[in-house]
């Protein structure tokens, strides 16, 4: 396992190089000229050309990539074309917000989703099963921006219990994290229910029951443990999405996170910022997937990587 861990950590470097290479050429394929976007609609061709020269976009693409990589090796992600601030500073300023929101949302989702899925599977076709299934359906079908707005209307405007947006206190985290968690809870609950229903009908569960074990032990130690692999995968994938894809929620709640930063950077064709943000997403995903793989081996000792 140690060898595997070292190999995985070392593989981060080629993966990041792959991401940077793919991203670099992908960005050049997107429609829209960053120099034109920065210069504005009224700019003269000369002004646009000056900005292009300033950003180094007038050089051949392979040369631009070589310059970018030589900086990256020195951990220099460059400066934002839009704000002129160092990319790393802007990312560092927003990363804690993104992490906080994602961690709270995924914790809420696991705390509610897994027990709801278990209850639903243990009592199939009962009122609790229907309640969980219908709630999950609502959670998955409601667009997050609409749910976010409705929560703002209810809790910030009508009841005035919570702030409508921004950051600063623990109250600010509640509405965006609940909005984000709504979809993930539903996803986890559905996955838990289905996989638990399958394991509850397996022979080893019947054996465990016939041995006289209590129902709680049968459910938690025998059925749930064997149903955990897909649940862990989904939690890992969703956590990754929360880290990078919470653009709509961040917009509704004016939450200064990385998702919004990336979206704004794409709109402005701010190449250095897009590259920096995606590289950070890549790092986060590599880390999340590594943790998920390690948890697999912990949950199911038959899983070996060496």
């Amino acid at each position: 396992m140690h060898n595997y861990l070292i190999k995985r950590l070392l593989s981060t470097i080629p993966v990041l190089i792959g991401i940077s290479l793919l991203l670099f050429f992908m960005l050049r394929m997107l429609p829209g000229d960053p120099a034109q976007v920065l210069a504005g609609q009224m700019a003269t061709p000369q002004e646009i050309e000056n900005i292009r020269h300033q950003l180094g976009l007038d050089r051949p693409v392979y040369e631009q990539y070589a310059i970018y990589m030589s900086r990256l090796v020195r951990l220099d992600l460059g400066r934002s074309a839009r704000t002129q601030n160092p990319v790393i500073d802007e990312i560092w300023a927003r990363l804690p917000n993104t992490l906080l929101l994602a961690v709270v949302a995924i914790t809420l989702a696991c705390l509610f989703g897994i027990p709801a899925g278990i209850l639903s599977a243990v009592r199939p076709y009962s009122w609790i099963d229907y309640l969980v299934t219908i709630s999950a359906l609502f959670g998955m079908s409601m667009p997050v921006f609409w749910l976010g707005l409705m929560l703002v209307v209810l809790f910030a405007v009508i009841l005035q219990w919570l702030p409508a947006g921004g950051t600063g206190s623990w109250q600010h985290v509640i509405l965006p994290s609940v909005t984000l968690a709504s979809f993930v809870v539903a996803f986890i609950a559905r996955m838990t229910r289905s996989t638990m229903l399958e394991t509850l009908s397996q022979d080893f569960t019947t054996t465990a029951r016939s041995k006289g074990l209590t129902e709680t032990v049968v459910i938690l130690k025998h059925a749930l443990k064997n149903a955990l692999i897909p649940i862990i995968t989904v939690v890992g994938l969703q956590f990754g999405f929360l880290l990078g894809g919470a653009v709509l929620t961040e917009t509704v709640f004016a939450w200064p996170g990385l998702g919004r930063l990336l979206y704004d950077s794409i709109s402005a064709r701010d190449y250095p910022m897009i590259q920096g943000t995606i590289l950070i997403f890549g790092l986060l995903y590599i880390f999340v997937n590594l943790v998920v793989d390690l948890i697999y081996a912990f949950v199911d000792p038959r899983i070996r990587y060496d």
Partner: protein
Amino acid sequence: MTEIKENNVCQTGEWVTENRFRRSWAKLKRNKAALVGGVLILVYVLSAFFAPVLFPGNPSAPNLINSLETPTFKDPLGTDELGRSILGRIIYGSRISLLIAVGVVSVGIILGIPLGLVSGYYGGKIDFGIQRVTDTMLAFPGFLLALALVAVLGVGLKNTVISIGISMVPMYIRLVRGCVLSVREEDYVEAARAVGTRDVIILFRHILPNVMVPITVQTSLSMGMAILFWASGCSRPPPNGGRCSVRPGLTCSMHHMWRRFPALPSFWQCSVSTC
């Protein structure tokens, strides 16, 4: 003698099929939620199929005299700012949404499941390689990946489906691979290997059916996700249920009754897809 044997086999085969069908039907009847879901899917598919019969005429043709009408018998959900029936546009939109949902998920399944199976079953260098590619793909947010692919492949429904579908592939790879890692250690897989069954048969006949439950859940949820994804990225005018709720212009211009419920069209379509 041979004839009798063949008849028996044939009759047994029919009996097994009939029995399986009866069992499935009995199971479905017990599960009221699944039954309701099935009816909703049927209504959704039939309404998409018979859209021209239900709402004759062009759903995108403006009719400014009827702009922002309250719900009537003719237009049960009222009209939008251009006087077009909202229900008519939702029904026509379900045709595109259905294509998107099925198309995107098909791309995800066709590419993701075999790669996930191979990655989990063989392990070692193959797994390592496939997983690093998956890590790379996951680093790109779906909308950026789709945007870049559309830029390369060109605009159009087919290319959009391929683009969104490819962004769903890593999810399937990770999910299938995780389940296979566990299932490949089961006795029946070892038994199949011991009797010399080919790997492709083991993968698709022995392992795949045992990892179908999470794949089914993922597929039903991906359909809803694909509709919303398409809705927020689509820039063409055809009516689309998801888009009806996402496009801000339409949201604001809907009759005041629907301003409170702008998510209704996509909610309906996502609910049906995830049933």
